[in-house]
């Protein structure tokens, strides 16, 4: 009997972990998309998602229906991502990766400041995309929201995989990553493909933002998520899309389980406010033991 109760508790934690992991996975995919196409870690990814979430909130405040606002936000995020690449990243395209990373940090400040400037610092409330009502599956209470988030994450990852594998644009984007010079000779618009990568990343991030935002959010709500997404992406291998998804899901489950060991009957647990340091520990361990992560390609550098 005790065992059964523990099992249900454990299963709940796992599903909850998969749900938060799914959100990290979308942001991690966005990071990987940009990393693969431009070799840059986009520190502004979280703030881009924060900004678009505020846009969605503003749209709802102006009387647009929730789903209409969501659709518009994803579209605006896509266009905005392309615009950012064209205007801000393009001029430093050939600069060292470090320079570009610093530019994305500038973008971080810019978006963060803009969100404070346009929308006041108070907490904002946005309804959830899914009902939070629990359903019982095999004796385990699972909220519909968690299931919905997992479904959205899986759908987003699948769509992206289909785009890259089965469409001409996807093929062109992969070609640009593999060999920009040859791609250019074959008539692929390299610059636009990179911009498209930014657009897709921003759109993915905006979904992650919307899923994180309910019930309430403020200007800093995506900052921890960004660290979790980094941790997930590194765990999976920062240049692997599959790795980003698997790594983030694992991380979500891991964090949920280690912070609820006591409810599982161990009498001891890791404090919930140590989630961020735990993610840091994951990043450090992976980078020190196996920098290429679970699915990434080992880097061989040539001087």
């Amino acid at each position, binding site marked *: 009997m005790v065992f059964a109760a523990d099992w249900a508790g454990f299963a709940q934690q796992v599903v909850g972990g998969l749900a938060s992991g799914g959100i990290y996975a979308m942001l991690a995919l966005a990071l990987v998309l940009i990393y693969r196409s431009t070799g840059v870690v986009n520190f502004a990814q979280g703030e881009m998602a924060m900004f678009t979430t505020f846009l969605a909130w503003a749209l709802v405040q102006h009387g647009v229906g929730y789903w209409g606002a969501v659709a518009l936000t994803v579209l605006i995020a896509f266009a905005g991502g392309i615009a950012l690449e064209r205007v801000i990243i393009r001029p430093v395209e050939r600069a060292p990766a470090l320079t570009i990373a610093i530019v994305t940090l*500038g973008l971080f400040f810019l978006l963060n400041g*803009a969100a404070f*400037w346009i929308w006041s610092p108070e907490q904002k409330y946005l309804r959830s995309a899914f009902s939070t009502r629990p359903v019982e599956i095999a004796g385990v209470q699972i909220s519909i929201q968690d299931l919905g988030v997992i479904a959205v994450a899986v759908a987003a990852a699948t769509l992206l995989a289909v785009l890259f594998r089965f469409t001409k644009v996807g093929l062109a984007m992969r070609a640009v990553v593999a060999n920009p010079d040859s791609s250019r000779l074959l008539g692929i618009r390299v610059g636009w493909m990179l911009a498209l990568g930014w657009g897709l990343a921003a759109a993915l991030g905006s979904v992650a933002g919307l899923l994180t935002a309910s019930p309430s959010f403020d200007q800093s709500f995506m900052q921890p998520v960004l*660290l979790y997404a980094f941790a997930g992406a590194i765990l999976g291998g920062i240049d692997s899309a599959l790795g980003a998804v698997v790594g983030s899901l694992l991380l979500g489950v891991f964090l949920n389980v280690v912070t609820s060991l006591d409810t599982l009957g161990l009498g001891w647990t890791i404090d919930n406010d140590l989630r961020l340091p735990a993610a840091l520990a994951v990043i*450090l361990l992976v980078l020190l033991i196996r920098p290429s992560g679970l699915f990434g390609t080992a880097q061989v550098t040539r001087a």
Partner: protein
Amino acid sequence: MKAVARNAVRVLLIGVAIAVMIVLPSYVSDFHSRDLAQAGVFFIAIVGLNIVTGYAGQISLGHGALMAIGGYTTANLVAHHGLRDVWTIPLAGLLTGVIGLLVGLPALRLSGLYLALATFGLSVAMPSILKHFSGVTGGDLGLRLVEEAPDKITGLSGTVTIWGYTLTQNHFLYYLTWSIALVLLVAAWALLRSGTGRAFRAIRDSELAAESFGVNRALYKTLAFGISGFYAGVAGSLLVVSAEIVNPLSFTFLLSITLLVGTVVGGLGSLSGMIVGAFFLEYLPDLSDRVSRAPGVASIVYGAVIILVMIALPGGAGGALKRFSEPLTTRLYTRSQ
């Protein structure tokens, strides 16, 4: 001839700068000298950050976290162990230097963006870590030195008397910060001109080439982090000495990024540029407040400046200074040679 002339100009400029720094508090309000002291804190921190990022080429987004260690060392020693605040400054520097060495260890295996990510993680996680060890750090509330050890704060009564001179507390903080800053600047300058500095630059420009010339990559990378940590620790300590209060939110990861902004604006790999970077960090929020009091304006300007500097002037203020000064000065002495 060239070297003599150049050095003469340099010594003159430095002399003038020091003279200005000494008399400056007499010309500004008492309260304003505290702002100037704050600029000195930024100066020390970004000189340290520049050693590891600008000269040794190892990006660090974790210097806010290192400052936190220095700041908390001071706060803890004063509040719980009854040390006088100013004597904790070197201890804070040393302890943070050791922590810096530890941070440098992962840097041996990580380079570039991975290091950026790891140090970014450190500064994002730091406030949670500080909250967790509440026995040492006072948890969420932090440590309030004014209440816990008022007799250990130098100048709390309003004035400080040193060698017969009586200073207001704000003037004392100003002179304290900037004399430490001057000493540390000279130390950094000497270090970077020595073989160690050359090894740093060699690693920055090409790790492989440096190693094949016999530069001990592991030693110098860790050393750069250690020294840089010492600077960050002293800066964090001074911050707490002047604020008299510390809590986990004093050192968010935004501080780490802000420090990087200051270093970039001042010029990576330029020590003299750091003075521009420090004043930029200290006065930009004030300036933007004057333009608009709306929240977020300072961040917008920070962001815009950093992007514009990286696009148009990757060398920062120091690089620009060099570019403008070089043609004229070279012309001046090439004839006499």
